[in-house]
């Protein structure tokens, strides 16, 4: 083989959290020959991190998890030639073969700091295809793909774009919601860290489709590595003419800016995010008007989640029909699920909608990390329901979850073993709401505090029956009387906990 050996070590912050930087450094130090260490994103097999891959004529051979102190031995055993005790070809691992990567196709594969690598792996194909169509045709392509917002609400992305395209205004904006506040979710972060050009491409397509010249990505401050990765990619994209006055030599002018949040969960709600982008307190706005008509600074604005926007390039490149052919019912395409919490094999699973919860948690996730039985799963973030193991058969599909009184949300699945105290989790749901409420409406602001007190009384065995009724009324009030889903959906984890795990609410044990 000619040239240096290519070794891939993730720069993803999850991989770094368990020592990837030290592993990369050690490989450089002890290689003993010329190596090129490429810092990729993560493949999403987080239990294998740090996962080291080596390019061989047969493909990329994986080693993991690799601790810094393992490196010397692995190199001595022939790691640089793909020999020694390895996981085999990474693409052939069962976890990878079970998936169908569309949005995450390049994450973990390419160098996120290389525009050339992005292009060599199919980057810009979607944008080129879009620019060959009229804006209205692009919008209809996205409508036909069936893509629904991945941020939680599942609203059809193309329909939203159609509204913005149809709105007459001097200025329009495209805003990407990268606030990703839900516990158990990390796909937005991993996409931005691992393949930021795809998000830029998706936002540029959105800008062309609706007639915007300016875009903002609102990234939460908890994600400093994502901010760095995105800013680096934006600078490279400008150099390449992928952003700027004449995008890819066309008449499209579009530029993109990063804004960093400041630690407020509610700023993931789209109107609070817009307020925050404007430099205000993150207070939720009453709708109407919808952001598509009066969004950032009162102008028509596309607000989409990272994954929604990052799915658009593939839709334009391969056609709406190919995307819509995947999935089930009204949930079309693939979704990027995230397995976290007490799970043996946590990480990213991108599959068509319709895979069951049990397949995700047991087949891919391997059950709990503790080895104890799974007892509950919280799906869809802090506002999502707690689901018992009796519902392992539930397909991951917006409607199926809604029917079961649950929600898919941003696709996070948090696993708990049988040591979990579900009354404590219900209490946490209220206390989180109390902490993060924007304070605009009383049911949310006051109701959440009342909720904590009521659960405390139930747990202490004080007037259990009476307080369970009170709890139910409180949930009803919050569901009906809250302006946004923060107060409106906090009852979901609470009620599901009471419904399926009522033995934890027996009190004074």
């Amino acid at each position, binding site marked *: 083989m000619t040239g240096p050996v290519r070794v891939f070590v993730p720069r993803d912050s*999850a991989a770094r*959290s368990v020592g990837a930087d030290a592993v990369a450094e050690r490989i450089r130090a002890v290689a003993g020959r010329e190596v090129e260490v490429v810092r990729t994103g993560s493949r999403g097999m987080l239990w294998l991190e740090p996962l080291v891959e080596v390019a061989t004529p047969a493909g990329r051979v994986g080693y993991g998890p690799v601790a810094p102190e393992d490196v010397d031995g692995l190199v001595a055993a022939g790691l640089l030639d793909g020999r020694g005790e390895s996981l085999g070809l990474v693409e052939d691992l069962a976890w990878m073969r079970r998936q169908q990567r569309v949005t995450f196709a390049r994450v973990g594969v390419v160098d996120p700091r290389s525009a050339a690598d992005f292009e060599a792996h199919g980057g810009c194909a979607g944008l080129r295809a879009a620019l060959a169509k009229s804006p209205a045709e692009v919008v209809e392509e996205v409508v036909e793909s069936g893509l629904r917002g991945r941020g939680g609400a599942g609203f059809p992305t193309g329909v939203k774009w159609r509204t913005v395209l149809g709105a007459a205004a001097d200025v329009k904006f495209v805003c990407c919601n990268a606030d990703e506040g839900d*516990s158990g*979710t990390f796909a937005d*972060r991993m996409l931005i860290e691992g393949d930021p050009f795809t998000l830029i491409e998706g936002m540029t397509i959105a800008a062309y489709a609706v007639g915007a010249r300016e875009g903002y990505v609102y990234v939460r401050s*908890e994600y400093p590595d994502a901010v760095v990765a995105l800013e680096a990619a934006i600078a490279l994209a400008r150099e390449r003419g992928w952003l700027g006055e004449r995008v890819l030599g066309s008449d499209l002018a579009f530029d993109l*800016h990063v804004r960093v949040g400041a630690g407020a969960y509610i700023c993931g709600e789209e109107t609070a995010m817009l307020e925050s982008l404007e430099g205000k307190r993150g207070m939720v706005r009453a709708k109407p008007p919808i952001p598509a008509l009066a969004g950032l600074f009162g102008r028509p604005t596309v607000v989409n989640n990272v994954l929604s926007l990052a799915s658009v390039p593939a839709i334009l490149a391969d056609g709406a029909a190919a995307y819509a052919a995947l999935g089930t019912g009204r949930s079309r395409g693939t979704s990027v699920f*995230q397995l976290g*919490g007490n799970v043996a094999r946590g990480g990213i699973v991108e599959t068509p909608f319709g895979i069951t919860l049990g397949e995700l948690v047991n087949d891919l996730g391997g059950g709990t990390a503790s080895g104890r039985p799974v007892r509950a799963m919280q799906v869809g973030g802090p506002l999502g329901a707690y689901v018992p193991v009796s519902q392992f058969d539930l397909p991951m599909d917006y409607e199926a979850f809604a029917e079961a009184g649950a929600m898919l949300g941003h696709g996070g699945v948090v696993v708990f*073993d049988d040591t979990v105290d579900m009354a404590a989790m219900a209490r946490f749901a209220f206390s989180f709401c109390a902490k993060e409420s924007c304070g605009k409406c009383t049911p949310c602001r006051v109701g959440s505090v009342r909720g904590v007190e009521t659960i405390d009384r139930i747990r202490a065995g004080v007037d259990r029956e009476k307080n369970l009724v009170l709890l139910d009324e409180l949930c009803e009030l919050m569901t009906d009387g809250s302006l946004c889903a923060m107060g409106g959906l906090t009852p979901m984890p609470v009620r599901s906990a009471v419904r399926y795990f009522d033995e934890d609410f027996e009190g004074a044990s």
Partner: protein
Amino acid sequence: MTTDVSGLTRVRADRVRGIAVGLRHLRGPLLPILHAVQRDLGYIDAVDVPVIADVLNLSVAEVHGVVTFYHDFRRGPGGRVMVRVCRAEACQAVGAEALAEHATRRLGVGFGGTTADAAVTLEETFCLGNCALGPSVQVDERVHGRVSPARLDALLAEAGR
């Protein structure tokens, strides 16, 4: 030794004004300015608020309202190192509450507190996007995964505690 307090205040005000003037061309400049002030000067002092308000032509109340709304903005100096323990659901599922308790006991401060020697400020946080490798802890900008109490002790030792 005498400290010229008004002189120091003036120096700070000049720096804050410089930051604000440098960023006011942005759309929605207030959050970028507050982040920059905190990064360069450690926290947002009460005396910074009227300076920023003046540059942006906002009321003092408006700027104050924004500073107090967001958890990130500190209104007084913190420790040399910021330690944030994740207490969200996915980390709770793998022992975050025990870790949180260990952290407060070990440092002798509650969440939001700073150790007497100003070495460490301890904060709680809700999700660091590392939910498959919890419990997660952020030390300044770096996230650490699978943090056991012993591992936390080692991280704190590196931070001078």
